[in-house]
């Protein structure tokens, strides 16, 4: 390492720009504000929050993402988290489940149970939720390519537990557009994927009216390299594309708009993140009205969850991550988030240990019960800087959305690989800035110690037999289920998939009850729709 390497220098005074590059004035004065009065919370356009009483009626949901190994392993962790005061479950699924491969598939074998729990069929889901009353807990699934199937499975578990479907609360991510741009768990081409998503939303509006059938997510494009402004722009553009599709399908706009939810990242630029959330609410309410004439106040509300951590976490001096996540969670709650997931300090690099997972949860509890943040609505509302930056974030985000409109819409931008290439460029720029030392990351490119290691202390090891056990259980299932029923329900699914106007959810639920597997349902749909061909553009 040369003497000019950043870690051997003292960082310069930070440049007066936000992380997205917005120039910050030395002093903001009231005459610089477009919205000197941001209005009242609980009323459109909701700059100050969607509830008139903020967190006084209900705190945000503490929702820690968790899942690994077998359904039995994960069920045990859920019971631990619920006993520790967690208020909602968030299911991490393994990659085979997310990409639609059964655990014995050659593509899948090395990934079973690694980044989440393996959930290939209803029998596994019954174990996962054993002893957990689905009528009394809200469950969030980070699932996209196979979201319709996992949702169908959740309904089937509820049926088995005797819980009426209308009592189910929770969220499936079900946002396929951003998967093509960043996260990569796409399966089918864009257009049939949009159909499957609409099917899920329309079915859920009817059968599970308290469930969020989509969580339109900016988190992953952000983590992949997009700025805060781009995160918001791409996410709202995706949201508009779903609304357009649902209207085309004849959905009741007021009804479905009411159940759309969002999911964002929180990074380290404290004020930019707070203002991003305030701008997001105002912009979404305006866009629904401008573009679709949706003026029902409840339908115009942008409800969102966040994740704190991810790519802002460092392997270098990992305990610093506890402070980072704490600050990010402050931004999220000052910005009015409905649910918060605080990453454990080791989470970007491994499955958290019980020790690190507990600190992450305690961080939220300290904010909620000790800091006083929750005691008044939008405590920063009316701050000259916060109102000014909210205006600027809104302006810049509108520009990103218009740029996508000019390109021909998100679907085209994705099919061409345009957005994917943009994000890769951004990630490259971001990396170069860190390498040059223009962006300061404490403990990584500045303030290192000669003797520092990237040691997390205790390491969580997924049960090494998990994959084997999952495969054994899978083989047993194949032997024990009723093959005629499986064949019959899959055949019906295949036929329905070929008819554009048929809602596939009842068919998927039938398949789940017959113990058809995720891999089998996906293969059936692929036979009708084909697979997405990734545009490779560097």
């Amino acid at each position, binding site marked *: 390492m040369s003497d000019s*390497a950043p870690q051997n220098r003292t960082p310069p005074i930070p440049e007066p720009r936000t992380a997205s590059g917005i120039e910050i004035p030395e002093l903001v004065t009231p005459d610089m504000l477009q919205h000197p009065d941001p209005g009242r919370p609980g009323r459109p356009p909701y700059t100050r929050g969607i509830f008139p009483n903020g967190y006084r009626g209900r705190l945000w949901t503490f929702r820690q993402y968790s899942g690994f190994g077998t359904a039995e392993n994960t069920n045990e962790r859920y019971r631990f988290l619920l006993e520790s005061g967690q208020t909602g479950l968030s299911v991490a699924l393994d*990659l085979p489940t997310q*990409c639609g491969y059964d655990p014995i598939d050659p*593509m899948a074998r*090395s*990934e079973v149970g690694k980044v989440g729990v393996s959930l290939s069929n209803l029998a596994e889901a019954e174990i996962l939720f054993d002893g957990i009353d689905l009528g009394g807990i809200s469950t969030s699934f980070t699932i996209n390519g196979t979201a319709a199937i996992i949702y169908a499975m959740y309904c089937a578990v509820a049926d088995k537990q005797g819980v009426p479907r209308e009592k189910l609360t929770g969220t499936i991510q079900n946002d396929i557009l951003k998967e093509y741009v960043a996260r990569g768990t796409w399966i089918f081409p864009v257009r049939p994927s949009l159909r499957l998503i609409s099917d899920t939303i329309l079915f859920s509006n009817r059968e599970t009216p308290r469930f969020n059938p989509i969580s339109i997510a900016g988190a992953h494009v952000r983590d992949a390299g997009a700025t805060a402004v781009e995160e918001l722009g791409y996410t709202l553009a995706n949201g508009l594309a779903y609304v357009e599709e649902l209207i085309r399908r004849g959905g009741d706009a007021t009804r479905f708009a009411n159940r759309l939810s969002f999911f964002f990242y929180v990074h380290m630029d404290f004020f930019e993140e707070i203002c991003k959330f305030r701008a997001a609410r105002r912009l979404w309410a305006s866009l629904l009205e401008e573009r679709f004439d949706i003026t029902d106040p409840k339908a115009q509300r942008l409800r969102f969850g966040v994740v704190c951590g991810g790519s802002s976490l460092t392997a270098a001096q990992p305990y610093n991550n506890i402070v980072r996540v704490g600050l990010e969670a402050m931004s999220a709650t000052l910005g009015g988030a409905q649910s918060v997931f605080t990453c454990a300090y080791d989470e970007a690099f491994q499955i958290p240990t019980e020790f690190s997972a507990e600190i992450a949860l305690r961080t939220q509890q300290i904010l909620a019960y000790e800091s006083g943040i929750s005691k008044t609505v939008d405590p920063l509302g009316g701050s000259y800087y916060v109102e000014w930056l909210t205006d600027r974030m809104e302006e810049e985000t509108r520009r990103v959305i218009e740029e996508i409109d000019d390109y021909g819409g998100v679907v085209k931008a994705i099919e061409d690989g345009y957005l994917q290439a943009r994000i890769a460029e951004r990630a490259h720029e971001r990396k170069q800035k860190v*390498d040059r030392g223009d962006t300061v990351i404490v403990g990584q490119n500045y303030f290192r110690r000669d003797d520092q*290691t990237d040691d997390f202390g205790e390491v969580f090891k997924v049960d090494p037999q998990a994959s084997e056990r999952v495969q054994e259980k899978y083989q047993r299932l194949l032997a024990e289920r009723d093959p005629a029923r499986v064949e019959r329900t899959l055949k019906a699914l295949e036929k329905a998939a070929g008819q554009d106007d048929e809602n596939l959810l009842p068919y998927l639920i039938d398949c789940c009850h017959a113990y058809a597997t995720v891999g089998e349902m996906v293969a059936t749909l692929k036979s009708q729709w084909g697979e997405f061909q990734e545009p*490779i553009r560097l």
Partner: protein
Amino acid sequence: MSLKGKRILIAKPGLDGHDVGAKVIALALRDAGAEVIYTGLRKSAEYIAKVAVDEDVDVVGLSMLSGSHMELVNETMRCLKEYDAGDIKIFVGGTIPEKDREALLNAGACGVYTSEMPLEDVLSDIERQLQ
């Protein structure tokens, strides 16, 4: 630093969909003069080995963030040997715990790079490996 004339395959084995690291390294290698081929997501070891041979690359970079790196590196090496191309080197990038670095190098990887290493250091190490 120059990687002029070097042919490099950047590949995503397994099911992991995080491709930022792969694309960033591909862009950086290209800027340094290399001819870079990128496979796209979710490729089998068998496919990656075949592309490496067909494209006559000098080195294959495998990017993995799902914790399956040991299995996938071994599998790719086995497939390369089957194609009689065991001389094609492999480097690894992604979320690799410190304790696995040594194991990957022992298994025959020529370099293990994580996201926090400066690109310049990664590139000069690759250049050294290809001399």
